[in-house]
């Protein structure tokens, strides 16, 4: 990466930290607005605690995300096979998006218990729709000439899907995965807020609630930052996957 690419965002970061420090020094109340250095200290002193929470939230988000990918791509693949299937199921996919996940969470706890699996399911619900929607869009946008080409050579539905529709849809699948990467982490935090601690210590969301109760605002901020970076890491991983799959041929990744 070249200097001129990294320099601008770093400058913005420095500027942000300066403004933040200045604002914090004006208030001078650690539990209201701790400065960046205080938050950094919380990071160091509570490092093991944070890593423990990160590990739990990471697992919840990862499982939720992987389930969302599996279910979302499969569901979209099924709907792409016929107009009737699509018309029958797509409205419910939309409802899944408009479903207030936070409000449904108590029901999920009722059904699946105060446990990690409930958090995973909430993360799944929140991150599912963008994957379904984008994958379906991609599977339906295959160039008509290519469809006709395959038709000319008697390709089966199966061959059509795996040699034509799916590869052609990869840019859209990746777009869906990128949106859902952050959502899966958000879903886990929301889930933890409602489901609560679980058996061992709990994840970042649970810790945020406890730390807030103790007025440990620097720790709250350190935890929020950790969760944000976790979502960012998910996003970057998917972006790397997207680059790997697309850089040879798709406009979005050709350098």
């Amino acid at each position, binding site marked *: 990466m070249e200097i001129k690419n990294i320099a601008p965002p770093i400058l913005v970061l420095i500027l942000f930290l300066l403004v933040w420090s200045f604002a914090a020094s004006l208030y001078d109340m650690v539990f209201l607005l701790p400065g960046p250095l205080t938050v950094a200290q919380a990071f160091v002193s509570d490092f093991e605690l944070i890593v423990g929470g990160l590990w739990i939230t990471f697992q919840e988000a990862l499982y939720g995300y992987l389930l969302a990918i599996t279910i979302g791509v499969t569901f979209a693949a099924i709907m792409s096979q016929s107009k009737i299937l699509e018309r029958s199921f797509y409205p419910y996919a939309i409802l899944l998006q408009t479903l207030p996940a936070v409000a449904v969470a108590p029901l999920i706890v009722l059904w699946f218990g105060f446990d990690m699996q409930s958090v995973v399911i909430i993360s799944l619900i929140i991150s599912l729709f963008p994957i379904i929607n984008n994958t379906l869009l991609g599977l339906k946008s295959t*160039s008509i*000439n*290519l469809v*006709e*080409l*395959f*038709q*000319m*050579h*008697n*390709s089966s539905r199966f*061959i059509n899907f795996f*040699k*034509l529709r799916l*590869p*052609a849809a*990869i840019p859209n699948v990746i777009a869906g995965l990128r949106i859902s990467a952050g959502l899966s982490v958000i879903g886990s935090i929301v889930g933890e807020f409602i489901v609560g601690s679980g058996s061992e210590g709990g994840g970042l969301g649970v810790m945020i609630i406890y730390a807030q109760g103790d007025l440990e605002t620097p720790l709250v901020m350190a935890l929020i930052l950790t969760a944000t970076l976790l979502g960012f890491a998910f996003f970057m991983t998917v972006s790397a996957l997207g680059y790997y799959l697309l850089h*040879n*041929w*798709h*406009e979005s990744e*050709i350098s």
Partner: protein
Amino acid sequence: MISVSNVTKHFDKVHALAEVNLDIAAGEFITIVGPSGCGKSTLLRIIAGLVSTNGSVMKPAKGAFVFQDAALLPWRNVQKNVELLMELESVPKAQIAEKARSVLQQVGLTGFEKSYPHQLSGGMKMRLSLARSLVLRPDYLLMDEPLSAVDELTREVLQEEIHTLWNKDKFTAILVTHNVAEAVYLSNRVVVMSPRPGEIIHIVDVPFGDDRNQKLRSTSKFTKLVSDISGKLRTWK
């Protein structure tokens, strides 16, 4: 041979093709010319079996279609693109590599095996599209304005290459174009169609042998025939 009888086509309220009857001998090169929207591409798609019709089309088993935009798979490199139709037609795996190598050499794409379609020029894409079809040794080849997107110079070079490839394999060829000089250069017969609803208004025999080259274009016979056919197209309007 290919036999088209009583072929008509309506798209909802649009009467695309009136009634088309056409017999094409095995190994013959036929070009269909006509004004935009006359249904010549529709006719080609009907022959290909991609569009339904009330009439009937008799044709040999093995055919291929060359699309206007080359219709390559952008995620496959040249090698994988040239193998595509062989995969779909279940050509034995052991033969695929050798056939691909030989056909790429024929169309001058040796050395580009690892390139992706976006890295190729319009002419190279079309060569690849032709190679992918011809490697199947088709009985007939349908081409829908394959050269409309390439520059004039490349266009003439590709016409010569198509002529050479046809001369070598003698597949039955049907080409759709609105370039009359291209039609005359390549064909045994030129079929002239009327505006919508399309029907055949003239079939012009092209009296040149099967051994054509660049020089033919500047002969007076050639230019006269081109202007005759252009005239036939124009008088209809």
